[in-house]
């Protein structure tokens, strides 16, 4: 099976134009650019742009793993305040309560609404955790060029992309209740400080999974150096 990367072909991500990056993956004047950069002592790196739409063309997403790792770390950092802090402040006369996500789940469970409890638990606690964990797993395996069940890992990635949209459930619930339940002193709902970190977790995990390049799953057999070069979009990296 031949890959575009093997023969120096890449697709423009915007206009889908297939671009020949050269047999070695480098644009024809890459060497010149490299030389210029070197001559001036400036660390210029040649970059391929789509000749049609001027979008940078790469064989693999640029800095995919770095981005994914960074965003994932950010998401993981926000996961703690998102769960530890108050998600929702409810005043239902005369009782006022502050609920974290977990205490809300417990409350729903104790009230007998176990379906809702399971739903909220899954969407708000399990899913973000699974996303962070499985994305981390994918990043680690691709970094190690693991050959372990690439199809299954690809499927995992697709599932991540799909369920990621549902993780905002809690934020939606709080936003909706805050808007609807404002009955003066009898009942009112206000968002707690955990809402922003929680939204941050969801957004960051979505960005992380978007920045991850699933094609890297299949890049087994390539040497570490080649893979790095691919991720930078240039075969020129090989020459370093």
């Amino acid at each position: 099976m031949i890959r575009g990367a093997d023969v120096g072909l890449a697709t423009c991500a915007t206009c889908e134009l297939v671009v020949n990056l050269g047999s070695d993956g480098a644009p024809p004047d890459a060497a010149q650019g490299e030389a210029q950069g070197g001559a001036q002592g400036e660390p210029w790196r040649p970059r391929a742009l789509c000749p049609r739409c001027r979008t940078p063309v790469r064989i693999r997403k640029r800095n995919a793993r770095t981005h994914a790792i960074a965003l994932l770390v950010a998401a993981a950092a926000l996961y703690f305040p998102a769960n530890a802090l108050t998600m929702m402040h409810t005043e239902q006369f005369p009782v006022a309560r502050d609920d974290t996500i977990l205490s809300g789940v417990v409350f729903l469970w104790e009230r007998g609404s176990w379906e809702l409890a399971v739903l909220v638990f899954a969407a708000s606690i399990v899913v973000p955790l699974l996303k962070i964990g499985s994305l981390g797993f994918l990043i680690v395996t691709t970094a190690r060029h693991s050959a372990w069940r690439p199809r299954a890992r690809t499927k995992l990635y697709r599932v991540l992309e799909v369920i990621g949209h549902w993780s905002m459930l809690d934020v939606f619930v709080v936003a909706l209740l805050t808007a609807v339940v404002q009955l003066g002193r009898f009942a009112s709902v206000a968002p707690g400080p955990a809402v922003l970190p929680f939204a941050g977790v969801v957004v960051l995990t979505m960005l992380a999974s978007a920045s991850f390049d699933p094609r890297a799953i299949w890049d087994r057999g390539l040497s570490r150096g080649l893979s790095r070069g691919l991720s930078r979009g240039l075969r020129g990296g090989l020459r370093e």
Partner: protein
Amino acid sequence: MSDPRFEDLPVPVVHHHKRGWPSAVWIVPIVAIVAAGALALRTYLRAGPTIQITFENAEGLEAGKSDVRYRNVPVGKIDRIELTADQREIIVTVKLNHGAASLAAKDSRFWVERPRIGVGGVSGFGTLLSGAYIGVDRGSDKDTSDRFTGLEKPPGVTHDQIGRRFRIDAVDAGSLAVRSPVYLLRQQVGAISDLELAEDGKHVYIEIFIDSPYDRAVTDTAVFWNTSGLDVSLDATGLHVDTQSLATVVAGGIAFGFRDGDPPGKPAVENAHFKLFEDRAHAMARPDATRLPLALRFHQTVRGVSAGTAVDFEGVRIGQVDAVKLGYESTRHEFFSDIDATVYPERLGAAYAGLVEEGQRTGKTGLQMLQALVARGLRAQLRSGNLLTGQFYIGLGWFPGERGKDAVAERDGVWVVPTERGGTDQIQDQVESIVAKIDKIPFEAIGGDVRDATHAATSLIGHLDRDVVPSAQQLVGQAGAAMLALRESLTALRDNVAAPDSAIQQTTRATLEQLENAARSLRGLADYLQHHPESILRGRDAGSEPKGHP
């Protein structure tokens, strides 16, 4: 379609790009970590101290739900509720809010606020809906503590109340309780803050707290009395119902005031001691320095006399009955009643002062003074104070008839004042004798006589009707005829006498004329004789005719 040749594909433009900097994407995790750290730090900083409070039970408290409230503002939450190691109490772990750290002052007090129906009304009503919470009374100590012993009841007075505390010694606390109100002129000015049994078990120490500015009204001349419940008293002056407010009927309370005529006094110092009088009347009565115990023996029923019955002298209540005892005299086989009474002679006012002065002047002892009074007829008597209620009082009064008969005896150091059978007793006796006399009247025989007399009268009237009336009618007819005859006679008489040409008239007139002439002659003679008295002896002078009317 021919195979596209790679060489035919377009070649990208080369763009030279600065390198060497770490990817900008790392800003995202840095920002996230900083944000998470800031949130954690803020949460940590906002968390106040954690304290532990022991309570006897955790009724109504729920970990994670129940609040700690200061002035009804939530200032913390119960984190955990556990049993102590010996399982006698519970330990409530409370997380106070950041701003509420000062509530953990060493002398702060904590209690569980539950719905309470008690003194001064219903409290903690809101907790019926919200569930119990822990109330805090913030202490003034600068040192903080993390272990507290919770109160089982809300404290009567909180630290932030301005006012003063006073101690009141009571013999009987009645229905008083912590938070019972304290009244001045029927306005609540404070409350009982503590109630404690004295060590000897005979007194109750009551600590009251009077709110500022009324605390200045508590002067050293103030008198306190118990207003608990409804003070219903039935005495010789009638039925009295006295209460401060409806609340005291249920909750009890203390009132204070001033005796008439007492100087206003200086504001009492904090924790000054006062005595609690059992009621207003006792409080308002002047302290009776001189107590004079008296014994009275009555040979009559003393129904209506009990401890507290007034002893009255000339309308002045000078004391009261302490006890009523029934005795038996074996020699005369008689029952009698001994009444112990206490008299406060100072209540006689100026009269007592006068007596004392007299005693000092004459050198007589009190007993001798009393002896003198008794010799002049002073006696104790049971008198009815109120015919409706049947209440009696003991009156000391004068009985001139008893003058010099009895003397004051001294028995067990108590003076025994001779008594007189009560006015009511006498009335009773008289009424009894009247009733006995009425009893003796032979009403039946009288009734029979009356009946007989009536019969006789009836027959008499029948007889009169039958026999007398016809003859009477006849008599009346005759009388009419007689009257007619009489009238005729009178008419005839008038015609004979009164007519101008009647014979009687003519004759009468002639007679009168002759009488006139005779009188004239007599007058002439008299005149002559007056002028010529000698003519009686010598006869008549020819030239001197008697002058007279012709």
